[in-house]
């Protein structure tokens, strides 16, 4: 079956256009993610987080739309800049703070850190750093559900334009289409792979053109426009659930941070910062709320206060917890204890 790449017209925030019905709910997840990540950055700068902090500033609108439409039984494979999506999917804030702060009570128990976390039993896959690898893992999860006779499930895997250039991503996309699994892949082009700009990442005119080559249906998206993110990604989720071929959404944004907080992003040009895709999606969404009078200033202030309180509580809880200790660790990498090598 030959699939055709389809493209929505480049979405624009239209003043006074009614936003998506879940706009405010999505905005609050974005606000929570931004608040949390700003706090994590200050903890990192204060030397209280070891390793690194990787934030999704500028990508919250795309990310929240990835998590928001998933239902119980769906599979989510978030990536490095998906705090908003993870929260909307149901990841507790404590998972984040415990992982960043290395609590033994966190899902990774100090064995892995920062954004390398997940709850596979709760359908939130735990990414590895090697980009593209989680696409085929998501495909496998969907195949298992098909084998088991489950219905009405989909999977959603996140990637960036950097990860799209790996062989693993290519194999994952191809096998998804061969297996005809209900998969949505959301690719966020934030214009830099670490420090490398698009012109040294790929040479095709538009990444969404790859959809047709894989047997996916493809859609482009202004990732700074929350309403468009909800419409386009929500639509892709709906189509995947309805049995359409796998869906590729390519969103355009600018990464409004360094690769990690160790990186001052001095290589980001002034010129690119003036591009329309360089807008801050959170500010754009808030402006829309004001323009359309969707919430008053007092309500917005309450939401900020509530987000800050949730974040403070999650951080303070994790900070009080016991860190892992080498002599209390069981140092066993396999589940079958009888087969542990005696070295």
């Amino acid at each position, binding site marked *: 079956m030959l699939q055709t790449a389809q493209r929505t017209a480049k979405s624009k925030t239209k003043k006074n256009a009614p936003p998506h019905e879940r706009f405010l709910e999505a905005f609050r997840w974005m606000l929570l993610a931004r608040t949390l990540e700003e706090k994590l950055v200050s903890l990192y700068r204060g030397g209280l987080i070891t390793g690194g902090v990787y934030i999704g500033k500028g990508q919250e609108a795309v990310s929240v739309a990835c998590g928001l439409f998933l239902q119980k039984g769906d*599979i989510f494979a978030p990536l490095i800049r998906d705090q908003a999506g993870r929260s909307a999917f149901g990841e507790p804030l404590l998972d984040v703070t415990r992982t960043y702060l290395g609590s033994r009570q966190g*899902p*990774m*128990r100090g*064995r*892995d850190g920062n954004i*390398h976390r*997940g*709850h*596979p*039993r709760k359908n939130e*896959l*735990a990414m*590895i*750093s*090697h980009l593209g*690898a*989680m*696409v*085929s*893992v*998501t*495909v*496998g*999860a*969907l*195949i*298992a*559900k098909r*084998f*088991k006779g489950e219905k009405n499930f989909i999977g959603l895997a996140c990637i960036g334009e950097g990860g799209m250039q790996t*062989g*693993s991503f290519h*194999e*994952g996309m*191809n*096998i998804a289409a*061969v*297996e005809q699994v209900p998969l949505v892949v959301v690719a966020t082009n934030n214009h830099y792979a670490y420090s490398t700009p698009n012109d040294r990442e790929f040479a095709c005119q538009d990444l969404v053109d790859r959809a047709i080559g894989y047997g996916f249906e493809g859609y482009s998206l202004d990732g700074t426009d929350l309403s468009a993110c909800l419409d386009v990604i929500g639509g892709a989720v709906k189509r995947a659930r309805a049995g359409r071929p796998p869906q590729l959404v390519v969103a355009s944004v600018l990464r409004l941070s360094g690769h990690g907080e160790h990186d001052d992003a001095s290589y980001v040009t002034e010129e690119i910062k003036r591009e329309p895709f360089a807008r801050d999606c959170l500010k754009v969404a808030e402006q829309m709320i004001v323009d359309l009078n969707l919430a008053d200033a007092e309500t917005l202030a309450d939401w900020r206060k509530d987000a800050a309180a949730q974040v403070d509580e999650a951080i303070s809880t994790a900070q009080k917890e016991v860190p892992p200790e080498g002599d209390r660790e069981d140092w*066993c*990498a*396999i*589940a*079958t204890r*009888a*087969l*542990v*090598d*005696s*070295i």
Partner: protein
Amino acid sequence: MSITYLGAIREAQAKLLRDDERVFIYGQDVGGTFGGAFKATKGLAKEFPGRVLNTPISEDAMVGTAIGAAINGMRPIVEMQFADFSSTALNQILNNAGTHYWRTNVPVPITVRLPSGGTKGSGPFHSQSMESIYAHYPGLIVMTPATVEDAYTMLIEAVAIDDPVIYCEHKYLYYHLKAEKLPTEGLPTGKARIARKGRDLTIVTYSAMLHEALAVAEQLASEGFEIEVVDLRSVKPLDTSTVLASVARTSRLLCVGESFPWGGAAAEVVARVAVEGFHLLDAAPQRLNAKDTPIPYHPNLWSAHRPNAKEIARKARALLRE
């Protein structure tokens, strides 16, 4: 009735598909009427519709898909067409499957079958023994069956194990080995087997090299030496106790493996015996591997590249003289 090593692998998969609805087979050319490059899945696609699935030439995605299915309740068996090609799936095997239980507490019960080792004329890219690479990384079980019986029972056990298992089946043994019938049970994984008893020298080996070692033991018996041959069966876990107990009887150790010499299973055995059983030894422990070059195509070069009975016997005699 007699059954080959390859037949045992096919029969084990048929039994697994029959007995356990969580099992499916995923690999290049395994399905349809073809049944795999070596016919290890011949007829299974017909007998078990929808459960023996051809894949694109995408080793990374084959393993990634198996990982996703495994953490969602399935027991996939991935067939690599040749062990050599599993190098393009190293990331999924080592970094995803191998770390998953440690990181998330959720095990990944996949079995990856690797048609391993040399046959003449196969050259650098269809002859490799990869067990040492996989054993080096945490989180994986590495099986290296050397007999028809082990090929059968260990594959069944591999699928039952909750952790990722790298099952190294030796291509040279596919048709060379035959058994009268298949066993109903075998030694547990992680337990080495004394393949031949002796008192003068211990040869520790696994997979196809077991048969070279047994031939040498037979030959040296006519010269008055009693060689004990230990078949490791799995290189990870490695049954150090059985090896040390054997060295305690013989006081001499030669370890033989078909993989490349730098590091690896043979080096690991020598290291463990040196560390834990130094006092048992009357001579420095020795090892013998393939040469440190890519595996050659021409049969004359190939047979000189891998350890063979002649070379093992030479090394054994030198060790016995010490």
